[in-house]
């Protein structure tokens, strides 16, 4: 499933936050690209800018300078509505704290991105069931999040991330709130997704988890200090 053009191209990106008068630089001249089908682990200490980088790639924020291309589209200059559309169609988020809506059942949580895509409810139901099935949790479709274990919740969250067949999955410490067994299960799902061609960018603290990827990027004080292939 490898193609010539990178899925994500981060080019000379700087990000500076303004707190009142004070300017706080977070990222300096970040430059890297992600090819289709890669599984990239991003590591680094707290405050090194990992989350900021994920937010920029995830179209939740805009870079101060430089550009980010997603499927060859420069997202750094897009309007809010267009960014929302890209988040909806091209990006799937997996969070450390799962971020499921507590009042919606598993399947309704998975359907959420499809609602914003304007897909009919019959089609939504079908796609959501497929996604739940692919992470092995279809039997829990009608359960509410508080009736599920941490590992199950994260699997529902992964189903939500993949339901719209995005170009890239952004996972921010996906195993951070899980015990090691649930963490392993979640990583197995990522492996499976990746081997079926899904591009994954994952932030983690855990070296063992990071080494499950095909490439490792290390950040330190807002700069990339290492970028190597593992497999």
């Amino acid at each position, binding site marked *: 499933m490898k193609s010539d053009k990178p899925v994500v191209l981060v080019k000379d990106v700087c990000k500076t936050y303004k707190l009142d008068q004070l300017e706080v630089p977070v990222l300096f001249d970040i430059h890297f690209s992600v090819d289709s089908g890669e599984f990239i682990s991003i590591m680094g200490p707290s405050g090194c800018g990992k989350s900021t980088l994920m937010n920029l790639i995830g179209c*939740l924020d805009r870079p101060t300078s430089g550009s980010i291309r997603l499927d060859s589209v420069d997202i750094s200059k897009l309007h*809010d509505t267009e960014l*929302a559309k890209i*988040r909806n169609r091209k990006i799937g988020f997996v969070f450390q704290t799962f*971020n*499921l809506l507590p009042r919606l059942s598993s399947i309704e949580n998975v359907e959420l991105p499809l*609602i*914003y895509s304007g897909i009919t409810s019959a089609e939504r139901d079908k796609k959501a069931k497929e996604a739940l099935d692919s992470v092995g949790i279809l039997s829990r479709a009608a359960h509410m999040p508080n009736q599920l274990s941490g590992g199950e919740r994260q699997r529902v969250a992964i189903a939500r991330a993949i339901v719209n067949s995005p170009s890239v999955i952004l996972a921010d410490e996906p195993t951070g709130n899980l015990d090691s067994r649930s963490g392993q299960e979640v990583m197995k799902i990522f492996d499976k997704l990746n081997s079926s061609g899904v591009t994954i960018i994952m932030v983690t603290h855990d070296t063992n988890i990071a080494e499950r990827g095909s490439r490792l990027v290390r950040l330190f004080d807002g700069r990339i200090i290492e970028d190597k292939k593992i497999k």
Partner: protein
Amino acid sequence: MSFFDSFFMALRSIRANKTRAGLTMLGVVIGIASVIILVAIGEAAKQYVVAQMQSFGMNAAFLQVAPGKNAGDYMAYFDNDLRLKHADMIKAKCPSVSEVMPIVVGKAKLKYGKKDYNLSQCWGATENYTTVFSHKVVKGRFFNRAEVEGSRKVCVIGQKISDELFGSFDPIGEKIKVNGRKFVVIGVFERRGKVLMQDMDDVMAVPVTTGLSLFDTKAIVEMDILAKSPQLLKQAIKEIREVLDKEIDPSDYHIDTQEGMMSLINNIVGLLTTVIGGIAAISLLVGGIGIMNIMLVSVTERTKEIGIRKAVGARRRDIFMQFLVESVVISFLGGILGIILGLTGTFLIMYVIKLGMVVVLWAIILACSVSVAIGIISGVYPAMRAVNLDPIEALRYE
């Protein structure tokens, strides 16, 4: 996201917080219900008054010449320049007039044997009384033209008087004393009950000529007149004015029509509607502020949810619609409950005051529109707050 998705999302969110949504709606419910009840009562009052006037014979061909500059100039009733001869002049010179009935009114003490009766209204009238007032005689007969011209001491009494003085005896032909003078009872009116606050069973009619001497006056209290047809009403008024203006000062009398009396009632009902409508408007305003307040709380509570929705692709418009629709649904449900409560209240009130149920369609449509408008107005600001949340901050919110 489609409107239906927003709508069902709003219903779910309201269901999750039933008590809160219910209390939030209360302001709108009370406001709308009071508008519905109020408008219905006003409408029923108007219908009631029209029906009463018509049962009094005051149809569209009816008009009344009364002393004084305006209606309600009661002092003029007992001392004025209207005379019996003016009634004859109108009858003779106004071709558009079919009936003229001059009236005098006074109190009277009745005596039959040892029984006394204090009569509140003794009416001196002419032989056309039963035509003009549609008040029928069920026993005996009404007095005739000759008895009016001859100033005869005859009387027709209401059922209540008949019951009190004669019980089950036939009063026809009996002699009673009216303020010390002997009268012969020649007829009894049909039972009518109260019409326009006047107990029609507690009246007695005597020839107007007799009445004038009985009350020792020359002043006529009013002339009740029928035009030949409703179309001739205006013409009749013109003719009457031509006759009367030559005889008495135009500012010493006025002419009322059914339309004129209705406009007075409309004014009173309209004033009441404005006052209570204002109170209802304040209730709706407070209700709207309540909704806005709860929506603001709701936006803060759901900051994280908004962040998640934005992350999975909700546009600004989607978030805006979600909160706006929720606000409108709360307000509209309040409006519907208000309409139900208002109609129930109207029904109960009408039952208690013994009037027919009135449903005013325009008030219901207005209530629906107003409640939707309140929802929109109070939803916009909270929805804008939700839209403008930074997704990164919102996702971090705990």
